[in-house]
Every structure is written in C-alpha cells, then in structure tokens.
C-alpha cells in the first residue's frame, strides 16, 4: 500500500473535468475499478497496457473505485474503451467497468481564472473599497477573543452571532420589531474608526450609525454562495472586516445580452473579456440562458482588512467566497488558515428600497421569482465546474442568502443540500441501528387507521413506504405492490429477511422516479426530523414520488397524548440536557442545535457548568422507573411504548404546551442487548445508559412531537400547496380528527 501511494505521488497528476460524452480523448474515466474493489493501480496499468503504453493511472475522486487511465494516443484509449466498456473484463477478474473518455482540464479551475486583484482600484467596481490593515493585530485579537467568549449560533457549515437585529436566513431579512440591543461594546473603537472613513462619512446614501452586526466564523475551506444582500433589509453601505485569516472574494454581475447595456457597464465588460478570454466558452457552456453575460472580478481580502460595499457594488454585484482551503492568488498559493472570522456591519432599512438597480431590488420587483432566477444563474456555473457545492439555503454571510438551487425542470427532484443534523444521526439513526432487532420484534401491532388507509387503496397500486422501519406495513394489502425504504440498514435488513422489497434511502432524498407510485405512506417518521425545513422536505419528497391524484398518508406523534403518563416518561429537551450532549459529542453537536427547532437551548445555557452533569438526570430517570416499573420487565411487549403512533386526541390539555422536543426512551433488555452487537460501543459512547434495576440499556430517541394544527399549517406553504391540489393527502396528527389536505378522507373519520 505504501509503495502504491509512493508511486502514485510520483506520477504526474492531471486534473480532469467531467467525463466527456462521445468525444474521444487519450484519457479514460473508468468506473468500478480501483483499490476499493481490490484492484491495485499497477494491476490496472498492466491490464490497460494491452492496448498501448499507459502513461498514468490515477484515482478519480476519493471513492477508490474509479480511476483515470491516460494513454499516449487517442486510438489506444478508443480501443480500450471499445473492448472493455460495460463487459466483463477477463484481464481484471471479470469485472464489468463503465468506461468513458475524460477531458483533462488544461486551464486552472473556473474559480481561479479570474485575475485576483490586490486592491479595490484594480477591481474597478463602483462603490467597492478595500482598506488593508484597517485594524491592528491587538485590536484583531481583542475582537476575536470577545466573540469567542460569546455563544455562537450554528449553521450547516459555519457559526454566526447576530447583534442589533437577528438576520433571519429564511426570509433573508431582519425583523424590525425584534431588536436585540446594542452592538457589543468591543466593536465601538472599530465603529468609531469606521465613521471617520471618507467613503462612509461622505456617502451619498447615509449609512451611520450601523445597527446590525453579524459575526461569521468560516472554518477552513468553507465559502459563501453568491448573493446580493436583500435590498429591503439594509440601507447604505455594507462593511466586512476580515479577522483571523484571508480569503478571496469574487464579484459577479449578470447582464442580459440584448438589453441596452447600462452605460457605466460598457467598458468594464470589455475589460473583463480582455482579462479572461476563456470566459466566452465557459459562459456558453455553463449558463442556461445564452443571453446572459457574466462579468467576474476577484479581490483578495487580507486579514485585518475592511471591505466597503456601497452603491453598485452593494446593489448590483453578487459577492461570493469560493469554497477553497487554499487560494491561488495569481500564481501564489495562499492558505486560508484555520478560520476566518468576518464582522459584517450593516444598517437596517426602515422602509422599502428605492435604488436604481431595479432588476436586483426586491422592493421594486413585484415578482420575486425574477430574483430567484437571477440567483440560480450564478449557481449554474458552479455545478458544472465541479466546485464543491457546500452552500445551503440557511447559510448566509451578508444576507440575501440566494440559495444554491439548481434550475429545476418539471420532474427533476428538488435538491435540498443540508447535512443531516447530528441530533438525528445520533439520537435517531444510531439508536435505531442499535436497537433494530428488538425494535422489530416488538413492533408488529398495526395501527388501525394506517390499516384502513392501506386497505382502501386500489388493487395494483404501487405503494412507497418512506421510513418503513421494520416493514410492518409492507405487504399489508396483498393487492398492492409495496416498496419500503429506510435510512437504517439494520432495519432494512430485517425487512429484506421477511421478503419485502426494500432499499436503503433517506426520506429526504428519495431515489424513486417522480410520480411513479400510486400511494405513499410516512408512518411515524416526520417526528424524527429535527427542524421544520427537514419535515417539510420529507413531505415534499413523498408527494413528489406519488403520481397526481395519488394518495398519501402521514402520521406523527402528537404532543397531546391520551395517556398523560407517557409524557412523564419522556425527557423534555431543556438546557440541562445540552450539558449531557455537549459532554457526549463535543462541539460538533452543540453547533447543530441552533438550526434545529430547539430554540430554547442556546449555548449560553449549555455552558453553565455543572460539577457533574449526570447529577441532573437521575431525577427523571427515577420518575420514569416508577412509571415504567411494570412494563420494563416485559420490555419485549409492544405495550412498552404505546406512544408509537398513538396519536391520541384528548382535547390536548397538557401542562407544557410549548414543549415539543423530547427524548423518548427505548429500553433494550440486557438479554437482547448483544443481538445488535452495538451495545458495548453505545455504552462507551454514552449513547446508551445501563439501568440495572430494569436490567435494560436505555437509549434515547429524539422526537419532535406535533401540536394540533402544526401539520395543517404546512398545507398553505407554496411548496406544498401545488402538489397537494393533485394528491389526496391525509394527515393524522390526532386520533379523532384526521386532517385531510384536500379531498376529505371519509374512510378515516373514525
């Protein structure tokens, strides 16, 4: 292995673009071949040399099962592909490889084609100014120290702090009625310095005093999707102070060809083409609409610099930070460092915007979709150029979080690119993986309303069960074809053993073709998703794969439980448990809290130290023991947690109406614990705790319990209402009054 690596390093590595389709080259992209499938690079080289000298074999990506094979002539590559593509290859143990011609990238990748300016004068965008060494190292350290003492809010890829007003990533705006208070006093000296800057003092559009500050911490390699800050959110200038490390910021302007070009843009456009000739080709390849031209500029933002965006730079140019760990600044390689912290100062706008850049202005455009289209243009070239697409809609720097959404065409799945929050990975996926056999053995009682729904389906229906667990509803109606999926491989394994048709998949990214299924069910799934965006996404996905006029059923746990004792067995997720989590999982976990709906838990609370965090927990555990005294001994029986799908009604009188986030225990009896084999690891990891009284391992499962009407509320969402019109969607979040999205489900009026 070592020798292999060594020789790999010595080989000239070529950067390849996406595999070409139908264009013969001397290079082959070979899939299903490589060390990960037991074939060394030297074996590959030897095998492919049958067709002529092989110059190089190198990995394609990190999977270990895809390689690039470089010949010295196109003919040899064509011959190799002709002989071995998609057929069993005797020279390589009968493997079937998929072979395509690859195209080497002769130019640096797209992000580096733009000449990186070192000064704002060179960039030449009106309204853009960069002051280098705006603050001293001491001031920098003081600011960093101060923010590190304060609680961070965590987004998918980075952490933020908001002062003055919270920037709301969902609306890309601020709520004027929710003032948080003054900006932190540590920023006062900087603000004073800023107020003396001529561009600020003499700005055409008043910008003082700044009343909103967002502090962003970008880990190494994390960038920012291209966007323009929402016009209506902020007025005057937008400032960004770079601390801790440098970065490159790219500025992009999109111009519709054929429009009479704005006078002040004319020379810039020419200049831009002079700068990077290759952009012509790139533009035509990448932009969906050939009538759009893009002008790209880049500026190096050194540590301790202050960037000012005003006028055109603020209102008409998208700004963007490539997702690089290392920036290539005109041939010089610069490391981003471990983190960059930016202080973004803005002034909240009290009314609508009346700028002259109307095509970018949300206040002046009635159809906001135009804005969205504009933003999608800027993401297109990212995707095709193979940038790491780590952006997600909730990640915003300055503000107008133009989401990184590919242009959607009709039936394509809509992509939702947020990582699964740690709380779900740990307290849902891991737990179910660990308890799968026991869970399965105790989950056989079928909930009557789901049974009724399934029985009412037309014969021959294809039914998708998204989040099928142990598959207890699969095959329930013998006249239908059921296909189940779940994110838990052990649970799917159990389904397969029972002969069900299943695959492993995430309910938020279903692999079903759009509209293939006649019906869909999501039984006790949505409550394991830890934020609303993800719950809605799961609904959207299931609706997507069900045909128009199909039928879909969702069930969730309700906060209002008939058996009030149940609630006492659950652990409300409050601040004291964050200590436990923090202790268990470290900072990664903490960081995900804020994007969940666990709004009540902030890091301020979580940092309250406790001599022994565990001291807090036994109280509830004891209480739980009292409640569960009987059933634990018989934990194999389904009564153990009758909460499963017991969507009870009972007028919903619950003391803690607001409490929706719970840990619900699962007791895995000692005598069952070894079946999963994961018990020891779960104990070591803190995922499970021993309860010697009950002789069981106690796992906590994360639940978001729904309040009355919560699911109903989703029906008015634009993303759902369209589909809902064409599907019968039955939502049962109460046992007595099922909620139908559209056609009333008479059959369920129990």
């Amino acid at each position, binding site marked *: 292995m070592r020798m292999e690596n060594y020789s790999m390093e010595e080989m000239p590595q070529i950067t390849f673009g996406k595999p070409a389709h139908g264009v013969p080259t001397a290079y082959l992209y070979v899939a299903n071949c490589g060390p990960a499938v037991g074939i060394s690079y030297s074996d590959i080289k030897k095998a492919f040399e049958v067709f002529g000298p092989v110059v190089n074999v190198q990995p394609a990506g990190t999977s270990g099962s895809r390689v690039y094979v470089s010949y010295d002539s196109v003919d040899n590559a064509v011959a190799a592909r002709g002989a071995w593509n998609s057929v069993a290859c005797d020279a390589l143990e009968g493997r079937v490889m998929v072979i395509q011609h690859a195209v080497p990238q002769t130019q640096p990748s797209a992000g580096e084609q733009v000449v990186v300016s070192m000064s704002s004068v060179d960039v030449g965008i009106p309204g853009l100014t960069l002051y280098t060494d705006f603050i001293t190292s001491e001031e920098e350290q003081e600011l960093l120290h101060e923010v590190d003492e304060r609680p961070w809010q965590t987004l998918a890829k980075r952490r933020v702090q908001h002062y003055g007003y919270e920037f709301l990533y969902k609306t890309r705006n601020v709520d004027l009625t929710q003032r948080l208070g003054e900006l932190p006093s540590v920023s006062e000296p900087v603000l004073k310095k800023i107020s003396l800057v001529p561009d600020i003092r003499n700005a055409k559009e008043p910008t003082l005093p700044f009343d909103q500050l967002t502090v962003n911490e970008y880990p190494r390699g994390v960038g920012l999707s291209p966007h323009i800050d929402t016009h209506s959110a902020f007025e005057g200038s937008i400032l960004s102070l770079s601390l801790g490390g440098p970065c490159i910021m790219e500025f992009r302007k999109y111009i519709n060809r054929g429009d009479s070009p704005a006078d002040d843009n004319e020379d810039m456009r020419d200049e831009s083409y002079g700068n990077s000739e290759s952009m012509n080709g790139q533009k035509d390849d990448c932009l969906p609409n050939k009538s759009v031209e893009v002008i790209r500029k880049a500026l190096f933002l050194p540590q301790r610099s202050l960037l000012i965006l005003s006028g055109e730079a603020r209102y008409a140019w998208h700004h963007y930070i490539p997702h690089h760990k290392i920036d290539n600044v005109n041939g010089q390689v610069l490391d981003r460092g471990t983190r960059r912290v930016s202080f973004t100062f803005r002034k909240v706008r009290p009314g609508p915007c009346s700028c002259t850049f109307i095509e970018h202005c949300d206040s002046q455009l009635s159809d906001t979709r135009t804005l969205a289209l504009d933003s999608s243009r800027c993401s297109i070239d990212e995707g095709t150029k193979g940038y790491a697409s780590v952006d997600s809609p909730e990640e915003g720097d300055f503000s107008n979080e133009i989401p990184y959404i590919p242009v959607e065409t009709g039936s394509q799945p809509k992509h*939702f*690119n947020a990582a699964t929050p740690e709380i779900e990975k740990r307290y849902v996926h891991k737990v179910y993986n660990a308890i799968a056999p026991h869970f399965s053995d105790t989950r056989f009682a079928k909930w009557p309303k789901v049974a009724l729904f399934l029985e009412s389906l037309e014969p021959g229906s*294809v039914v998708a069960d998204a989040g099928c667990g142990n598959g207890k509803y699969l095959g329930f109606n013998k006249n239908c*074809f059921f296909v189940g999926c779940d994110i838990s491989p052990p649970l799917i394994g159990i389904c397969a053993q029972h002969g069900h048709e299943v695959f492993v998949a995430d309910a938020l990214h279903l692999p079903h073709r759009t509209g293939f299924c006649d019906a869909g069910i999501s039984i006790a799934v949505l409550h394991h998703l830890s934020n609303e965006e993800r719950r809605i996404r799961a609904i959207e996905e299931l609706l997507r794969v069900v045909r128009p006029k199909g039928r879909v059923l969702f069930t969730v746990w309700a906060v209002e439980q008939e058996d009030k004792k149940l609630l006492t067995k659950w652990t409300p997720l409050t601040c004291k448990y964050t200590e436990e989590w923090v202790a268990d999982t470290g900072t990664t976990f903490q960081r995900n809290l804020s994007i969940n709906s666990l709004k009540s838990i902030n890091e301020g609370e979580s940092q309250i130290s406790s001599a022994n965090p565990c001291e807090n927990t036994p109280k509830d555990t004891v209480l739980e023991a009292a409640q569960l005294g009987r059933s634990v001994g018989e934990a194999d029986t389904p009564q153990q947690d009758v909460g499963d799908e017991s969507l009870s009604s009972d007028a919903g009188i619950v003391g803690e109406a607001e409490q929706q986030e719970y840990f619900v225990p699962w007791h895995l009896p000692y005598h069952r614990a070894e079946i999963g084999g994961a018990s020891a690891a779960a104990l070591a990891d803190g995922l499970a705790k021993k309860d010697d009284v009950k002789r069981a391992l106690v796992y906590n499962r994360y639940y978001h319990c729904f309040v009355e009407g919560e699911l109903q509320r989703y029906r008015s969402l634009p993303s759902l209402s369209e589909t809902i019109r064409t599907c019968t969607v039955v939502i049962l979040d109460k046992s007595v009054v099922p909620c139908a999205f559209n056609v009333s489900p008479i059959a369920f009026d129990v």
Partner: protein
Amino acid sequence: MRLLTHNMLACNIKGVTKGFPLAIEVTKLETKESEMNPDFLRHIYPKLDWKALHDAAHTLGLNDIPEQVEPAMLEDEDFLQKFHHALLEVHLEEGALICPETNRRFPVTKGVPNMLLNEDEV
C-alpha cells in the same frame, strides 16, 4: 431487488438530470417464484419504462422480453408469464446499480440496494 424496483429507481445525486435507468452490475441473481397476477401486470404496464425493463432484463440474461409491447399482448398468457417472471421473480441479490450520468455505483447487497447519498452528493 426486482426489476420492478429497478424501473422505479433513479440516481438522485444533486445536479444529475439523466439518472435513469441505472445500469445493472450483476454478481448474483436469484429466482423466487411467485403467483402471477395478470391485473397487476396490466395495471403496472403503463407506468413502466419498457425500454429500461427490456434492457435490464437482457443484462440479467432474460432474453425473452420483447423490445416493444402491443397492448394486445397483455392478454396473452405466455407473454404475461414472461413479463411476470422478469418483473417480479428474478431478484438481483448481489451487484450494483450504476448511474448512467455520473457512474456513481449503488451497491446491492443481500438483495438490498443502498441508495443513500453521501453528504457531498445531496
């Protein structure tokens, strides 16, 4: 995995526009007999991408699936039997499904395709 499921599955990696049909890499097949339901076959027929089913059947060595189907054939017992066999009785137990656009390989183990995406693919 039955070919009916294969006909339903597409690669849903972000940005992929032609993720269907998935190429099949066969390591092990298994045949499990099941009772034929002609009504189900007639019902499912319009949903299917026939070319994908035909090509997949050939990959699995089932060469008696015609390239084209006339609706009248759905009344023909002999055809229905072959259709049923290819669609529902032959299972891919070990192998892989491969995205036609990206060549991403989704392994099939013990009859179960793993369609989970990596975080950088969603």
